[in-house]
């Protein structure tokens, strides 16, 4: 007779069903596990035997064979301890058969039979529906994480014996109930605020425009001008996360092992700031069972690349596809994995190698050739995806010592939200959410210019040598500025502000 218990494995960031089958047969007693188990699982035999004995049951002195199906997927980690033990006990008749088909069991076992926490509980909980199951038994330390998912029953367990008694209806386990929305609200306070930034009104305005339209930003300024400080505060003016967005992010973070037990749902938009020595695999994702990269960890959030020219060229190259499609596909021999990667990019750099090219106070020691080379280290294609260039000047003394505080993030965010909802209703049927994502044909349709702005645009192309690519960007950004202004038609002052955000175009021309 074969006994079956259902569990789950996480491949990439998605959960799949694993059937734990057990067979007890004749021959020299043994305890074998097949189904491509990794070392941790192979070691678990001793853990499981001890746990079963110490829970008051006996381990059959027979040939016990455990199969983790499907057989061609590599199984990793210690989450299968509990389901394997249960499968053996089921085969022995210690557990009653009834309604096991509705349950998923996961958990690591201690030698004394107690359950220990697992990784990826949220990802598994999110996958339960697809596996046709609605009940999840798991270690109590992971219960809150899993309970954030609607429409499933989560049962926190402390030991193997408790689970066996529960399945035999001898003991009750109280369902873990937690409201995802409550959890989200509790975690949604940012620790930083735009209020903390003195002066830099022009940059703050630029970031407001970027946030409103989903435009990527490049900050250019001397060292110490506050580029990082400003970048860090960008998430605080992005719209509030919905529960769906939070679940998406939390799932990715859960698989990466980043979920803290008291903050199971990510409540604030992620802000990731990788060092410029990062490898391409760490940035976009990689490894054997690929772990999510920084771009996925900043999904629905902000990716900050400080010192942009210092990043390796090949590393920046791999950003192109994800930025285009909002996801990254990693191919492996056995499988192809696609991870979400919809992030807002904000990059920062100095205006020249020594950093003081645009500084009114300090001397710049770089030759024009050096500056040209430095600026051209950023690949064309990457620059093409950045709509807004902001110059961040060194703070003037009076600003530094100004006691007054700037506008709080909340006020700015309200304006951003208004502009976003305008875009939302405008593009309802177009599958686009932001102005930054408009295609060329859509640009023509939605960016109506008045006479003055048309003239201004023509001038810009002629005098400033704005390329066709830059022209598209100008239109998109003007569209956002007009939305912030509450205007449907784009006016000249919207265009001129947008032109002010194309400083690199002008600089590169000399």
């Amino acid at each position, binding site marked *: 007779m074969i006994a079956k218990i259902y569990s789950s494995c996480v491949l990439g960031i998605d959960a799949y069903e694993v059937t734990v089958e057990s067979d007890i*047969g004749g021959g*020299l*007693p*043994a305890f074998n596990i097949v189904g491509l188990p990794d070392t941790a699982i192979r070691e678990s035999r001793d853990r499981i035997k001890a746990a079963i004995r110490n829970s008051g049951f006996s381990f059959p002195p027979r040939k016990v064979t455990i199969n983790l199906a499907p057989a061609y997927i590599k199984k990793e980690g210690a989450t299968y301890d509990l389901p394997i033990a249960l499968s053996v006990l089921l085969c022995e008749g210690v557990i009653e058969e009834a309604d096991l088909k509705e349950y998923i069991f996961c958990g690591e076992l201690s030698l004394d039979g107690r359950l220990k926490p697992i990784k990826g509980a949220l990802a598994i909980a999110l996958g339960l529906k697809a596996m046709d199951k609605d009940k999840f038994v798991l270690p109590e330390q992971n219960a809150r994480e899993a309970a954030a998912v609607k429409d499933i029953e989560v049962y926190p367990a402390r030991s193997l014996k408790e689970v066996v008694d529960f399945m035999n209806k001898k003991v009750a386990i109280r369902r873990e109930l937690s409201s995802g929305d409550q959890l989200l609200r509790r975690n949604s306070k940012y620790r930083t605020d735009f209020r903390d930034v003195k002066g830099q009104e022009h940059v703050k305005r630029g970031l407001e425009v970027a946030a409103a339209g989903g435009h990527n930003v490049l900050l250019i300024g001397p060292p110490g001008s506050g580029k990082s400080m400003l970048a860090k505060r960008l998430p605080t003016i992005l719209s509030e996360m919905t529960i769906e967005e939070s679940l998406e992010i939390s799932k990715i973070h859960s698989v990466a092992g980043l979920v803290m037990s008291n903050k199971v749902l990510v409540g604030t938009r992620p802000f990731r700031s990788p060092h410029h020595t990062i490898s391409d695999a760490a940035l976009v994702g990689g490894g054997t069972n690929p772990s999510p990269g920084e771009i996925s960890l900043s999904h629905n959030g902000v990716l900050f690349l400080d010192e942009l020219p210092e990043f390796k060229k090949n590393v920046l190259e791999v950003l192109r596809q994800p930025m285009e499609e909002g996801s990254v596909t990693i191919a492996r021999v056995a499988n192809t994995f696609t991870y979400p990667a919809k992030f807002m990019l904000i990059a920062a750099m100095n205006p020249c190698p020594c950093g003081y090219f645009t500084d009114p106070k300090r001397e710049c020691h770089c030759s024009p050739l050096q500056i040209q080379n430095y600026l051209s280290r950023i690949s064309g294609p990457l620059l093409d995806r950045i709509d807004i260039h902001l110059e961040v000047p060194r703070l003037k003394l009076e600003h530094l010592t100004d006691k007054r505080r700037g506008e709080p993030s909340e006020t700015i965010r309200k304006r951003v939200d208004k502009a976003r909802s305008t875009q939302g209703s405008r593009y309802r049927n177009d599958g686009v959410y932001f102005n930054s994502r408009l295609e060329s044909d859509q640009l023509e349709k939605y960016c109506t210019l008045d006479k003055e702005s048309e003239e201004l645009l023509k001038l810009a192309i002629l005098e400033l040598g704005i390329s066709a690519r830059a022209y598209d960007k100008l239109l998109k950004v003007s569209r956002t500025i007009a939305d912030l202004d509450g205007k449907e038609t784009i006016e000249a002052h919207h265009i001129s502000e947008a032109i002010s955000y194309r400083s690199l175009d002008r600089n590169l021309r000399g």
Partner: protein
Amino acid sequence: MGRERREVGILGERLALEFLQKKGYRLKCKNFRTPFGELDIVARHGSSMVFIEVRTRTTSSLGPPLQSVTRVKQAHIIKNALFYLKRYGGIDSYWRIDVISVKLSYDRILENIEHIENAVEDIY
């Protein structure tokens, strides 16, 4: 000297057999010879066929008798058992290997018998 050891061994096996029979084991064969070695006792217990390896000691200075069943020895016992099962049938039935350790005093008086069931598992 060799004869003394053999005598001690034979005495130990006899004591082990008495012990098992009192427990309800039915003797199938004693000192079964195979091309690879020998099985001390083959017995039936309930639905299982049991192959018993007997270890006898007169002093404890050479370590507990169970320790002398090394990995190599275990592999031999399995081989011998499989030979028996192939000849008389029952490879896929329930069978196991037990070890009985017999402790005798210096003047050959029984001090202790320990019976370890299922002492040797499949070496995978």
